[in-house]
């Protein structure tokens, strides 16, 4: 069995007295691409932020590569690449300057990789333009490069394919497949096809709780002849959607 890389132990987090996450327990092993699925507001982004120490849990703890995130977030960040849901970059820097900034912060000496990534993601021509003139998709690409450039052990990706063109999305998926041997990847999305295509382990969150957990094969077995979409709707309370639509149309 592969090494345990991330261990989430009984994590709970409240915002304004409402549970964003409740008693989450999860183990993630090296080489796994974990898909965090769930409807909007189910707690996917909160869980990723907790793993990086951006938020403090109310109860429980998270161990990442042996570091307790609450006590040693800085060391966790040194080995983690993160793509936020809404990339907020320093807009007064150029794309190149931002990546240079990231390399310096992570202590990356060989910056030749920056040029390769910029070319792969088709933003090489724009590298010297200020980020303020970038489109959302370009900002997302820059954010992805920033997460990959320091060769992290853990990759936390919050809806990373939002706003990406099909070519870049495909490239990114291929990169993830290449990386999975030496990197633990946790991937939040609400697009089930993507999870099905990329992830080898799936967690379905609903209202801050894990409602389903297992490998894709295990989940499909539990689903019994249902597709992942139908199973997802069943466990997240969206099964009665057809009857709702019928009522609306009437």
């Amino acid at each position, binding site marked *: 069995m592969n090494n345990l890389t991330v261990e989430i132990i009984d994590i709970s987090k409240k*915002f304004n007295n409402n549970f964003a996450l409740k008693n989450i327990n999860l183990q993630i092993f090296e080489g796994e691409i974990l898909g965090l699925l769930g409807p909007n507001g189910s707690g996917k982004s909160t869980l990723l*932020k907790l793993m*990086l*120490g*951006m*938020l*403090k849990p109310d109860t429980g703890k998270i161990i990442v590569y042996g570091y307790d995130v609450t006590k040693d*977030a*800085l*060391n966790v*960040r*040194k080995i*983690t690449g*993160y793509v*936020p849901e809404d990339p*907020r*970059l*320093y*807009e*007064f*820097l*150029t794309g*190149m*300057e931002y990546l*240079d*900034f*990231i*390399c*310096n*912060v*992570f*202590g*990356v*000496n*060989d*910056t*030749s990789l920056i040029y390769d990534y910029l070319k792969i993601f088709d933003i090489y021509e724009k590298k*010297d*333009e*200020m980020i303020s*003139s970038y489109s959302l998709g370009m900002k997302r690409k820059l954010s992805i490069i920033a997460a990959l450039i320091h060769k992290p052990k853990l990759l936390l990706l919050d809806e990373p394919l939002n706003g990406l063109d099909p070519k870049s999305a495909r490239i990114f998926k291929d990169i993830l497949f290449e990386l999975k041997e030496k990197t633990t990847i946790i991937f939040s999305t609400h697009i089930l096809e993507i999870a099905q295509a990329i992830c080898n382990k799936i967690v379905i969150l609903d209202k801050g709780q894990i409602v389903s957990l297992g490998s894709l094969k295990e989940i499909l077995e539990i689903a019994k002849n249902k597709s992942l979409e139908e199973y997802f709707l069943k466990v997240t309370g969206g099964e009665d959607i057809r009857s709702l639509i019928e009522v609306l149309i009437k």
Partner: protein
Amino acid sequence: MKRLIILTNVILKGITRAHAKRSLFNDPKNILIINLIIFALIFFPLYLFLSIKKIDLFLPKLFLNEVIVNIPFFMFIMFIFVGVLLIFEAGESIFNVETINWVPIKSYEYVLANVISTMYIYSFPSFMLLALIIPILIIFQLYPLILIFIFALLAAIFMALLFVEIIKIFLEISFTKLKKLKGKFILNLRLALVIIVSSSFIVFTNPSLIQKLLFNTKSMIELGWFLPFNWPSNSLKFYIEGNYFGTYLNILSTIFFCFSLLYVVSYLRSMYWVIEKPSIIIEKRHYKNILNIKMKQNTINVLVSKDFKAYTRKIELIKTYAPIFGLIILSFIISSSYLISLVIPTIIALILSTVAIGYEGKAIINLYYLPISYKEFYKSKLILIFIFSLFLSLITILNIYFILYLDLFKLLIIFYLIFLICFLASKIGLTIGLKYPKFEETRLSKMLSIKGAYLSLIVGGIFYIIAILMVWSILRLQNNSILFLILVFSLLYYFIYKIFEKINFNLSKKLLEDISKI
């Protein structure tokens, strides 16, 4: 007409709501109501006062010739500044043509709506002037002059704002056309433009300079009679001199020129109705070693470098500190006392340091997921304010030298003290910035909460008084006593510095440990 009214209303709401959320000025109607109330509060008491008190006949002549005639010209200059400042302020707001060019609106409607809305938003000085001048003209029964004055005032402002529209179009064209040149030129040009316009605004709205200008512009108007922006003033001048033909000629010329200018501006705008979004290109030079490997930089240096780039590139931040150059220029050209100079290392230092945290805006989230410790973050800010303090202290001491012509010993002592005061004020400014930041990244008030802004004003005031007392003491004390004073102050400084060092470390830690707090 209907479209023009709707567009003007939208622009007005866009401006008022962007500037003052949940305030009295949120609704454009309130601006008019407040202006009318202030007009009434000035107009009626002044009229009563003038009706009761007899005025020397000399006064109206001086008043008419030297003041009223020059006001339209002065307002023209003032609105050029206001308009240019608004261009820099506009950013992605409703002022931008891209936000409107896809709806069925004609270019002249867009131009007129922009001009009218700016006239309306900044109508306060016009109402004030009318409230001060109309009662005097009524007392002297110069009724036609009231109408000519109102016309001249409005025409001058209208003309100024049309010129601003031309500047705006040319800036858009040049920023787009010049983008092929390397971006550092564009960035420096933008930086210089904002600083020049903002500081000129500060310099030319200084009361003592206005007074000098008002009494000197008459000859400028006479000499430049052929220049259209002098025609509103000329119409007043000719009426006062009894030359009615000259008056009508200037009024008609003004109207004709305004319409012609509107036509030209609308034509230019229609040519650049869809503008190419400017993008600034800054090529990075890499200094690589023999192995073609880039050397790693210290995280603190990287953060400081990022901060300096923000201070020279981020337009909201440039607008925050650009007027400071105006104050510095003023302190050199009109100041005869060190009291004004000491504003620089105290209040200005505090303003610069309080926004050093909030300027990060929403991008502060980067600091939450990158391996940057709160100590590195805080130290980078400390280096930033140290450099600011050094710069401001050098300017202040230069200013004081030109005012007092002190000997080297006293000059060095004052420099040492000013630097300590400036650095401490900046450090406390940083405390306020850390405690009350706002990450909305639009204007000064959005980089710091209201509470923080008030607190910084109080602290700035205290430091200002301390600085005055220190300089005053040094100018009067003997050398031995000065050294004793320096020793006591240095010890006190060290003690306070250490306390705030601890507070700031804790506040930085608190700020960066949980994203839900921002």
